[in-house]
């Protein structure tokens, strides 16, 4: 498998592939327990999800957590800024694959592709305006170990106009990518 890998060396909004370092389950071996874990049957075509489906119960719960944090936009933070939190977290932790996916989503939903690209090019210190800066800074503080998120982050998010429900969406979105980044970075690698 590794012979075909062409790893990207910069952060990008281009579509990337991902190659597993250990064996995904073969499609032919998937049972109903595995399909329940995949949530979307179409994910059986993805190496990444057929790898994670080795533990179907965890994958199912993880996937449903992910979907609600990012796709439930009945109220709360706009989708674009949830994706910004995901992209900023991925940029800071160093997950080129995750950053590519969520930078694309942030661009699509915000129509601010150039600002998103500056986050990727310049890093989490890029000046993206008060509101986006506050979201990026909060995401970075949450990603640090030990966790550096504090009352200053809350105050900054509030000054930027976020209410408590929206701040919880930032916390959830950024925290979730500390989960996602660690799987993507450690079980395989991106390929152009």
């Amino acid at each position, binding site marked *: 498998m*590794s012979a075909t890998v062409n790893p*990207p*060396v*910069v*952060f990008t909004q281009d579509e990337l592939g991902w190659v597993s*370092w*250990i*064996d995904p389950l073969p499609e032919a071996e998937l049972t109903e327990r595995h399909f329940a874990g995949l949530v979307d049957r179409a994910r059986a075509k993805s190496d990444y999800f057929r*790898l*994670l489906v*080795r*533990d179907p*119960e*965890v994958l*199912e*719960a*993880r996937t*449903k*957590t992910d979907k*609600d*944090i990012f796709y*439930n936009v*009945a*109220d*709360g933070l706009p989708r674009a800024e949830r994706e910004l939190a995901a992209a900023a977290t991925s940029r*800071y*932790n*160093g*997950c*080129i694959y995750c950053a590519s996916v969520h930078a694309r989503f942030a661009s699509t939903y915000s129509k601010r592709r150039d600002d998103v690209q500056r986050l990727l090019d310049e*890093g989490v210190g890029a000046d993206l305006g008060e509101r986006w800066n506050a979201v990026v800074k909060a995401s970075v503080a*949450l*990603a*640090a*170990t*030990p*966790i550096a*998120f*504090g*009352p200053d*982050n*809350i*105050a900054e998010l509030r000054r930027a106009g976020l209410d*408590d429900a929206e*701040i*919880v*969406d930032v*916390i*959830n979105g*950024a*925290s979730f990518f*500390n*989960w*996602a980044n*660690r*799987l993507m*970075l*450690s*079980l395989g*690698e991106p390929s152009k």
Partner: protein
Amino acid sequence: MSTQDIIDTLAGIEPGSALDAIRARRLQARENAQKSYLSLFEPVDASDVSLVERAAVAAFVTGLHGESPVAAFYREKLAANADAAALVEAIQAEIARGKTSGPYGAFPAGPLSIENKAGLIYRVSAERKPVLGARLVAAFEHAHLLVFRPRDAASTDMKALLDAGWSNTGIVTFSQLVAFLSFQLRVVSGLRTLAAANA
């Protein structure tokens, strides 16, 4: 729900509070963060990763983040296992040796190399290897990488786990465990910070 919501418990969120109402707006996320916890710590199949191994990794990972209600919770969870006293003591000593600040590590060679940041490459101390055993030694060294320098991960790290007796499925569960705890610690910390800002 068979048990109390673990994030609410660790974050000190009371029923009927403002944050309880906010969390209720993301009910699927709340319920499935709970199901993630249950499927990792009360799994239907523990044949690839034992319950003691799960508790040991959780105590180590949460301890590496610094003392907190989450770290105390998982330390007590491990201590509740029979004959775990030596393990708890060894893990406390290894946490002290492994504590540092992240994320650090190297990017793929190229324009990002100027952002490379050196840091501790943690290895379990020789004196504690017999108490932990080969599987946990490999798991702790990889967990430390996942916590502090995930961008350093390489295919050779998978080989180290396989060589120590971890199966492919066990590696997936173990990786999910460390990654999930990275999430849970941050949600709890974030919610506690928000609650304190409103107090």
